[in-house]
């Protein structure tokens, strides 16, 4: 157990910066630059942390604990495990790219916008590192508030409907989870995630799982997804699908599976079925979606299903693959949505019927979209392939049919992703694509290329994550041992 305030710094630096942005009388340009700078400093801190992380050691690292409500054993307790380190890394990197995107396109009302984006960064990091259930809940909610506002104010034409839907769904989930947290915490006498003993209550398990399933957009809890992903500004969609959806799967790993071993065994088949349903259903709908974001949105749903299968397969390679896939897919969908944003800026639409032929004369756009596209369809050798392969190999050890369904998903992924790639890049120029539409500019490249580079590095060395997520790389033991 190492005590360090760097984790808290990762949470509170962006939140502090957000408050500073709201108070200080800065110019438009200065606000944006400061926000980008802060997000880059976050990435720097994270790299520093990752360099000092000891992947062989069991238990929490970089932790900090201060009593908060003593009578109920609630404390401000933060810290990281291997897998949370990677998810925090995903968050800070993706958020840096998205804040940079907001700066590049020059969002109006920058003071509020960048403040909210920074708040979102801090609270999402908070979700991944909090080791106290009430703190977890607080960050869970704090993460949603900026999202509502970001979609509701800066979104597309149907933004109000999308926001309300998102609000109804996520609030239902989080309130049920709050009830579960309170009951569980009072029953075991502590709200601390590390100390709390496992529980056998099926109701509590279902309460937590509902919230996580909604967040991870498992079938059939994904009703908020299409509207929100389509109406939000592209960089917010990138965060939603790249990072926020991973909160759901992270919660399954950290709380549902760890704290409820018996109920998760009892409901294993149900959850696996939901995951498989999300995979197949999402893939089918992605194949029929009519626009860029629709395809990526439903493919994110499919991927969440796959990650859930990996987690609930309950095997070593399934867990490792799921963590790897969370990070890989986070980077993929973040870059895909940012690219969708750049395409929409050039053509004012994401509809396939009006797009096409963008590859000719735009090599950077074509190369990047093609690269991310083929990584996302899990072409062998890519990070996503490594993740999916491990997940399905793990699922096979549970029962062969999960792997068979997953393999169908791989074929479907090839179909919808290639459809997207050719609809945007190939064949005749679409009516909405102006002749003068430029290739990606330097600023846009500076946002997407680092994400793609991270993906390529991961593709060259997936073991970097899959072997460094659980102490001693024995995930099943780690989960059974409550990560102590």
């Amino acid at each position: 157990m190492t005590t360090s305030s760097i984790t808290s710094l990762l949470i509170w630096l962006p939140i502090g910066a957000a408050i500073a942005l709201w108070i200080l009388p800065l110019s438009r340009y200065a606000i944006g630059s400061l926000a980008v700078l802060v997000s880059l400093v976050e990435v720097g801190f994270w790299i520093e942390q990752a360099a000092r992380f000891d992947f062989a050691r069991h238990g929490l690292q970089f932790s900090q604990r201060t009593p908060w409500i003593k009578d109920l054993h609630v404390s401000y307790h933060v810290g990281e495990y291997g897998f949370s380190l990677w998810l925090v890394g995903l968050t800070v990197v993706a958020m840096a790219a998205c804040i940079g995107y907001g700066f590049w396109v020059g969002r109006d009302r920058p003071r509020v916008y960048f403040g909210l984006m920074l708040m979102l960064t801090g609270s999402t990091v908070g979700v991944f590192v909090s080791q106290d259930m009430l703190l977890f809940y607080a960050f869970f909610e704090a993460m949603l508030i900026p999202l509502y506002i970001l979609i509701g104010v800066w979104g597309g034409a149907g933004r109000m409907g999308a926001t309300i839907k998102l609000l109804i769904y996520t609030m239902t989930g989080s309130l049920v989870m709050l009830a579960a947290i309170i009951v569980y915490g009072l029953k075991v006498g502590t709200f601390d995630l590390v100390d709390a003993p496992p529980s056998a209550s099926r109701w509590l398990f279902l309460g937590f799982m509902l919230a996580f399933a909604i967040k991870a957009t498992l079938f059939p809890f994904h009703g908020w997804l299409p509207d929100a992903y389509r109406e939000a500004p592209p960089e917010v969609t990138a965060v939603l699908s790249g990072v926020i959806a991973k909160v759901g799967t992270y919660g399954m790993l950290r709380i549902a599976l760890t704290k409820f071993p018996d109920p998760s065994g009892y409901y294993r088949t149900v959850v696996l079925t939901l995951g498989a349903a999300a995979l197949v259903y999402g893939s089918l709908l992605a194949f029929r979606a009519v626009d860029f974001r629709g395809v990526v949105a439903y493919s994110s749903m499919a991927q969440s299903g796959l990650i859930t299968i990996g987690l609930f397969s309950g095997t070593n390679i399934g867990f490792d693959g799921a963590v790897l896939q969370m990070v890989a897919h986070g980077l993929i969908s973040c870059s895909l949505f940012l690219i969708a944003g750049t395409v929409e800026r050039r053509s004012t639409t994401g509809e396939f019927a009006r797009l096409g032929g963008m590859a000719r004369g735009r090599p950077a756009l074509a190369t990047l979209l093609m690269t991310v596209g083929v990584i996302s369809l899990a072409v062998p050798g890519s990070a996503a392939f490594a993740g999916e392969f491990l997940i399905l190999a793990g699922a096979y050890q549970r029962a062969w049919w999960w792997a068979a369904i997953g393999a169908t998903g791989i074929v479907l992924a090839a179909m919808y992703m290639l459809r997207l790639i050719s609809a945007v890049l190939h064949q005749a120029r679409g009516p909405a694509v102006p002749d003068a539409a430029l290739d990606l500019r330097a600023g846009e490249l500076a946002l997407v290329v680092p994400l793609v580079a991270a993906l390529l590095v991961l593709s060259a060395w997936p073991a970097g994550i899959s072997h460094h997520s659980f102490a001693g790389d024995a995930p099943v033991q780690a989960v059974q041992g409550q990560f102590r």
Partner: protein
Amino acid sequence: MTTGAWLCLFAPLLGAVLILLGGTRIPRVVAGWISTTSVFVAFAGALWSFFALRAASGHIGRISSAWTWVQAGNFKVGLSVLVDPLSTMMMLIVAGVGGLIVLYSIGYMDGDDEERRYFAYISFFVFSMLLLVEGGNLLLLLVGWGLVGLSSYLLIGFWHDRPSAVAAAKKAFVMNAIGDATMALAFFVLIAHSHSLEFGASFATAGQLSPTAVNLVALGLLGGAAAKSAQIPLHTWLPDAMEGPTPVSALIHAATMVTAGVYLIARTHPIFEQARTVELVAAGMGTLTLVVAGLIALVQTDIKRVIAYSTMSQIGYMFLGAGVGAYANGMFHLMTHAFFKALLFMTAGVVIHALAGEQDIRKMRGIGALMPWTRWAFLAGALALVGVPPFSGFFSKDSIIAAALHDHWYGVVMAIAALFGAFLTGLYTFRLYFIVFPGEPSAFVREHHHAHHGKEGPLTMLVPVGILAVLAVIGGWIQLSPFWHPLTTWLEPAARTLGVAVPTNTQEAIASVAAVLLGLAGIGVAYGLYGTDRLVVPKLPAVQRALEHKLYFDEAYDALFYRPAAAFATWVRRDFEEPVILATGPDLGEGTLELGEGVRRLQTGLLRTYVLFLGTGVAIVGVVFMAVR
């Protein structure tokens, strides 16, 4: 020796990256030369490992690992290369033929406005193919397997303005994704039993699996092999793949990638031998394909499609060879086929290039008079393909037929089918030759045959064609079973021929004589039908139509798989997602609003109503307390 293998593997990747990063800063022609150099460096690396392996005693093979690629729990896979007789042979073929074809591309692609992209792709392809053959474990083999599929997709769809090219590229990728998926499933079985995908451990595991399990593993591998090698029923993508540039067809869809299925069977033969039935299914699949593809090739009018069907048919021979257990014979045919089929595609490319992209053989009549060198080169390739001695195809094809002849009654059946295939080969090959080359040049040919490249084409195109023509003639001389078989001996440590596939001398003689005679008969019939003295071509409209529609495979798949799946997806979207899932949120909201509307009426604003409710409430609570107590 592994240094050579690493050099061989990464030189083309480096080339691709250089071209990608160079972008428009480097001239087009430089991109071509970077690519060519990188592939020839790879060839040098392959030679290095070949000679090192020969010098090493026993030449069994050596694995060298760079770093741990994937590790999860106790499952661990390194990024490693394997140098053994089988992989060095493939490295030499891939890098050697690949280098010649990339060199040819410099001339062929000259003037295309996206040359740099082409050369980046093709270098990347060579890298992927080398990864496939050198990969030191099954997972890396699958990685290479997938990456060649990807580069094949990229290159088929290279001219992405053409809808047909894009569709063909997608089709090829999806078909291959099916194969990848079945292979992955096979690997899952192995992982579940041995937690490893190292060759040695997996082969050992295969021996301990239940018969069902090992059959499933072999079937999964066979699925991958059939998809990649365009064997029936996963063959429909190959003819469409001819939408790509001709050098791509020569390299990927003739010489290297499509033959990977044969390599896979040879590489994983210990698994297939545990599942002998599946191995024989592979042989049967090859036999069926070689006959059907030969028949379809008879009626095609696109020069590249004829050669594509011929490729399918020849890979059918290789599957037959590998399936009956004569791995070395299959690999031998793979090698000679790489020479003569690449040659055929490249000469076809020279013709197409000269005729400004025209591919219809009916318009090409008489081109031979204007391009004599091309004509002789094509003829050499054609004779090698038909298997006329002493051209290379004779040595490799006949040994496969002989090996099949030895293997029980089904072997005999397959050998007879293969002999019929030899007849078909002679027929369709020389139909092509007689239609295109001899005779007076047609008006179309005269009009389009532009002479600005000199006589037949730039030197970068003609030199590789010349080299391959020589190889197509002499390439088979390294082995003449039963007298002289260094190749079989070389491959013995990696893929020993099964005992049942070693034919007697009589069988060798029967197979050779019959195959040659039937091949010549095919040539004769072709001369009779399409040569200068024209007989009437027999008309069988029903058969012809069926063959022209490629026996309706595309239509059947469309009706059986694609359209139902697409319709189902549409149905799901229209009748479930939109009305049920997406409407649930708003419905909940509206329900809440309506409920509020109802409750609102209770709020009258009259004090006495409130008091009444209050009183009622107290009364109910009182009664409840009484009752509960």
